[in-house]
Structure formats: C-alpha cells, structure tokens
C-alpha cells in the first residue's frame, strides 16, 4: 500500500520527452503551470489540456502509471468540485432543495476547476516521471546558479536535494518492510481511535529513524572516503546540452501560450 506512492518516481525511457534537456523541461513546466492559471475560459483551458495530453502521448508512459498518480488526489479533487458547485451562484438555477442551490455557472466552474487540477497534476508528474533525479537536480543547480552572486551555496542545496530524492524510494521500501515485520507480530494499523492509531506508529517510526540516521552516517563516511568536498572544484561527467529538441519544444510552448492569451482576450470568461 505504501508502494502505491509514485511521486518522485522516474520511469526510464527513450521518448522525445525523456531526451529533452532537464532545464528546458523545468522551465516549460513552470510556464505551463503559470498559464494554467491564466486560462479563463473553456477554449483556452481545452487547448492547454489538449497540449498536456499530446505531451503525455509523447512520453510513451503506460496510462496505468498516470492513473495511479491521480488516485491519491481524487478525494481532494472531489471535495473542491463539490465546494465549487455549492458556493458558485451564477446563471440559471438548475436544482434547488432546502439550502442547496445549484446553478449552471456552478457546474461550469466545478468542471473547470477539476480539469485544471488534473491537467496540472498530469504535467507535473510527467516532469518527474521522464527526468531522472540526477538530471533534475543538476538542472536545478544550473538554473539557480545566478544566486551564487548573493552567496547562496547552490551546490550544497542541489546535493541535498539529490540525496533526499534518491532516498525516497529506499525509505518507502523500508517503511513497507518494518510495517510487515510489526504486522507479523500482530500490530494493527487499521483500526481503533486516533490515539491508538498514533500510538501504533511508534513501532514503525522508531526503527525507521534509527536506520535513517545510520544510513546518513554511512553515506557521509562513504562520501568523505572518496574525498568529497563539494563546491566549485567539482566538474561533471555529463555536460547538459541544448539540442534542436529543446528549441522545438520551446517554440511550440510559446505558440500555445500566445494562443491562450489571444483566446482569453477574444472570448468571454467563465470565471
């Protein structure tokens, strides 16, 4: 059950999306997220949503993986949709019962918000699914490097992120293993009141912290044994390169974004 978490996972592949430079992917994803909030009507949102779906098809990932990443957030999407239905009072009344009034404006709004969240989720998971953690942090280090002017230790920050990302799957496996081991001793994580449930977490988290600290010490030792010093003296085995793919992707993104601005101006707003 813990293994169902796919956030931060990377699925290796050779698609166009996998081959894009990680820096391009980060910047374009950010642009995408900003423009998702710029969209004000169904036409622009539809365009962006279609763009996200085409991007997904380019990644050649199995639909099961994507659906799995949606699963944990479905309750949140459902809740916001319901709240939108209830709180948006605009346009014709479709349904009325005691204190509940549903308008067609509310229905549009609810659909709009749900599509917005799903698109956002799809695009941001595509970023992590098609970019290896190392590439991702390398790119972040590069992108943040202008901050060095302000004496920010960008390299250490990037290194910390690499290590953290690297150990997410390890820790998930570890939690899974410890949970199984305690379950085998009759531990019960699924019933009882809140106090009992919190108490039931001790047998998991104490061993988890102990092994995490142990791992951290071992990793630090292993790094100093290989004379790790960090900072500016380090060079890279693989240099990141901007290729024609990145140019193509950026141009397409710019065109899509311009279309959205035009659609927003020319057509009436939903919000």
């Amino acid at each position: 059950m813990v293994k169902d978490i796919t956030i931060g996972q990377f699925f290796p592949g050779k698609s166009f999306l996998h081959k894009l430079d990680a820096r391009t992917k980060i910047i374009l994803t950010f642009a995408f997220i900003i423009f998702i909030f710029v969209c004000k009507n169904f036409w622009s949102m539809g365009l962006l949503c279609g763009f996200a779906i085409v991007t997904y098809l380019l990644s050649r990932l199995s639909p099961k993986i994507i659906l799995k990443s949606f699963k944990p957030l479905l309750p949140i999407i459902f809740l916001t949709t319901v709240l939108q239905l209830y709180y948006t009072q605009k346009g014709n009344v479709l349904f009325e019962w005691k204190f509940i009034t549903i308008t067609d404006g509310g229905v549009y709004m609810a659909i709009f918000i749900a599509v917005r969240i799903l698109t956002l989720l799809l695009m941001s998971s595509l970023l992590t699914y098609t970019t290896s953690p190392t590439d991702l942090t390398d790119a972040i280090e590069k992108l943040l490097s202008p901050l060095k002017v302000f004496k920010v230790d960008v390299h250490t920050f990037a290194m910390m992120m690499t290590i953290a990302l690297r150990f997410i799957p390890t820790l998930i496996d570890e939690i899974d293993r410890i949970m199984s081991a305690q379950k085998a001793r009759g531990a019960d994580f699924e019933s009882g009141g809140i106090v009992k449930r919190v108490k039931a977490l001790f047998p998991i988290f104490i061993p988890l912290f102990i092994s995490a600290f142990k791992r951290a010490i071992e990793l630090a030792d292993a790094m100093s044994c290989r004379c790790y010093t960090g900072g500016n003296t380090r060079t890279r085995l693989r240099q990141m390169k901007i290729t024609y793919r990145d140019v193509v992707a950026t141009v397409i993104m710019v065109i899509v974004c311009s279309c959205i601005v035009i659609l927003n101006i020319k057509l009436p707003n939903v919000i």
Partner: protein
Amino acid sequence: MSVLSVHNLIYGYSKGTPFETGALNGVSLDFEQGEIVAVIGHTGSGKSTLLQHLNGLLKADSGEVLFEGKDIHSSKEALRNCRFNVGLCFQYPEQQLFESTVYADIAFGPKNMGLSDDEIKNRVYESISFVGLTEDYLEKSPFDLSGGEKRRVAIAGILSMKPKVLILDEPTAGLDPVGKNNLLQLIKDYNKKTGSTIIFVSHNMDDVAVVADRVIVMNKGKVELSGSIEEVYSQGEKLASLGLDVPEITTVFLSLKKAGFDLGDTAFTVSGAVKAITEYLKGENDG
C-alpha cells in the same frame, strides 16, 4: 492433515509498471506438523514473497493458503488466528526493535494477542532463555546490544507468541560462524522441544544440510525440486543450472570419487563425512 498448505499461488509484483516480474507462478506446497523445511533458491526466485503469503501479509492474485485446513483469508478472525500461529521473522529482524527495554520489545507480540500480564511475563522469560540470553538482558535497551544479541532478542519477540509454525527469512545472514552455529542449534532445539513446524530460507547449502528435514528449491516463482536432503543434493548438476551450489563437503566427496575413492553420495555435513570416511577406512582394513 498438513498444518499449513498453499494451493496454486499466483502473485505478481508492482503490476502495470516497468518493474513487473512474475514473483509466484503457481506454487503448491504442504507443510507437516513438526518438520523443518528449508527453502532455497537464487535471488529473486520468489522465496521471500512465498513466506509473506504464509501468514497473510500478502494476498495472492489467485490460489489459497490453508492454515489447519482453513482458508486464512476467509474471515478477519481466520487471518488474525493465522498471524499469531504462523510467526514470521524477517531478514535482519534486529531492525524491527523499537521499545525502550528488551522486555517490552519481546512482550509486544503477546500484548497484541491480548494475553494477561502474568502470561506475558511467563512468555518473555521463557523466550529469552530459549534464545540463550540471561534475564539480566530484559532491563537493557535493545539498542545497546551487539548485533548477534539483537538478532536473538528479535527472534525471542517472535517465539514469545508461541507460533505453531515458525518462519525465518535468512536467519543466519550477517552472523559470524559461532553465532550462526548457535542460531541453527537454537532452531533445532526449538523444533524438538515444542514440536512446531519450522520453515526457513537460506542461501547457505551447508546450513540447510545441518538443520533441514526437507528441502524445497525455488526458481522463477515455481517449485523446481522438493524432497529430502539426499534427494535434492544428489542432483548437483540441476542445482548448478539454477545458480546454486552443493555443500562444500559434497564437492570434496565428488572429487574424491573422481580420484578413485567411492565414499557414497549421502554425506552432506562434516559429521556425516567423518562417518563415511571412517566406514570406508574400516572396510578397507577388513578387506
């Protein structure tokens, strides 16, 4: 009736992702009361997955697990009953210690069973002496102990539930030779004293030869060979093709046979070898 049996278990890991591998492809086995069974196999052969099905931690995609003839997933009570009667000790069990004292940690299992305080106390004392530690240890913190002692405390934590079937995943991994021999002896003693069934996974063919009554060889999620030590170990070529070795003694005896000294092929342990050699020498003196 077998105390524990599995019928046609099929189970796949991480379905629908690129990491999918067939972990169990139709496994059927019976475990009898009081026997010691060793499960061996190459890494990834599905041994550990099989073990986790035996006490219901994992649920197979198809097939069933019967404890004392009853499907363990038939009801919540059946599953609970199975959890407490089929004690599963994971690899490196010392990593699951969490309490502030050894006593409290060993008492965790019995407490979850809902036993009375007196009964819990009896069981804690009984199991700590079973694993060969003195009662002085009970008040210590489990984190102050040595690796071998931690392992014993963790195993005591399983024994305190008095399982009818004890399952151990690589119990001797990472122990020094003395610690290893002690632990194997402990497993044998526990089996003799309580009559429980013991199932254990091992990579070490020498360990298996010392302890087990029966050997199951797994490969690619299937039972490849099953039988007594003699039956399985005499198929050296087949074992080699599965990436497994025969015990060192057997290798020595095979080379002796090639050199013209036929000592038979039933010795798999050092004591068995001593016997075979003495008999051979006797026969030579007589003849």
